[in-house]
């Protein structure tokens, strides 16, 4: 049992780059992305016994990251601060890194993704960024596959419009 747990832990560790990528697409913020990945990893490890070996670890982890972001966004709404870019900037250690964060976050694609409704952004992030199959993406989000594809189609259309045909 211990070895299975260790195996799952090292599988999660190996997924960290992908979890960061997904979280960036989901939050559109560099620091937020790493914060929710950390929260998600901690949650996953305290409930590792709920993970059933043989089921899809990536779907499980993506859904935990997504729930962590929903919780975070909800508690921010409660506290009345949806985005606080200046404050986020202060948390960043050094100027070079801060500059890189600012530059990336200002990228057209990041800006456009932030403007999508959450439901469309989740679908785009799982399918177009993470490359999940429709069935798996739908399971991760807990919605029927037809709902996933229609959110995906609307998200894509909106991105095409914002990004000028994605040239």
């Amino acid at each position: 049992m211990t070895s299975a747990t260790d195996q799952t832990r090292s599988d999660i560790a190996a997924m960290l780059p992908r979890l960061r990528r997904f979280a960036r697409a989901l939050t559109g913020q560099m620091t937020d992305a790493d914060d929710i990945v950390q929260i998600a990893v901690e949650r996953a490890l305290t409930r590792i016994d709920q993970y059933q070996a043989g089921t899809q670890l990536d779907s499980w982890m993506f859904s935990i990251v997504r729930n962590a972001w929903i919780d975070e966004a909800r508690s921010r709404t409660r506290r009345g601060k949806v985005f606080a870019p200046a404050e986020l900037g202060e948390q960043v250690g050094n100027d070079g890194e801060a500059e890189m964060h600012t530059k990336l976050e200002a990228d057209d694609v990041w800006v456009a993704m932030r403007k999508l409704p959450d439901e469309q952004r989740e679908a785009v992030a799982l399918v177009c960024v993470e490359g999940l199959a429709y069935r798996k993406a739908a399971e991760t989000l807990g919605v029927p596959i037809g709902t996933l594809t229609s959110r995906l189609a609307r998200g894509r259309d909106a991105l095409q419009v914002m990004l000028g045909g994605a040239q």
Partner: protein
Amino acid sequence: MSVDENMLMAFADGELSGAERDEVEAALEQDASLRGKLAAHQRLRARLSAAFDGALDEPVPARLAEAAEPRAADVVNLAERRAARWSALKWGAMAACVIFGVFVGIGVMNNDPPLMESESNGLVARGALATALDTQLASEQAGAVRIGLSFRAQDGRYCRTFDLTEGATAGLACRDADRWNVMMTMANAVGGEVRMAGAPPEVLAAVEAIIVGEPLDARGEAAAREANWRR
């Protein structure tokens, strides 16, 4: 034209095979505007990759690597927690069996009102389950009942998925004139907060079979509650 937007999108995402894929490929050969749309899909995916793939090449920050690192001390704790959870699960399963006995009408020996009752036309939600189906939004903190998706069924009724946090049971209920008919229930072994979002696959399949359009969003859900779930 037989190839619609959704089919083209599915093709671009590698979701089609066999006859459907052949159909799109044949249409692409003949239709320049379709080729243009496919190219736009591919450009968008390429731009999304370019924007976010950087995360794959960057070194992972130490705080994240440490969060995931196996540590001997934790393993013991986890084992203990697992043992504790197992007994909780067993008790939950036993409680669920007892509750199910109550559902089908034996419930005189239990002081808690039953959550479901068998009537001539099927299982009907009662007590905390009926209250949650009537009033609780998916976004609200769950008590004994967690609400998942709310949606319109083909027959015009509002339906909602739920799971019972204690009894490890998930299900689907649809609103008749003055009651919630429980359409299905099933054991939901992986309960708790870190389960897959929403309902288990079997319940989702039942949703898929009867849903019209999309699940209600938060506003639609609140409006339907306001209208007392009347069609």
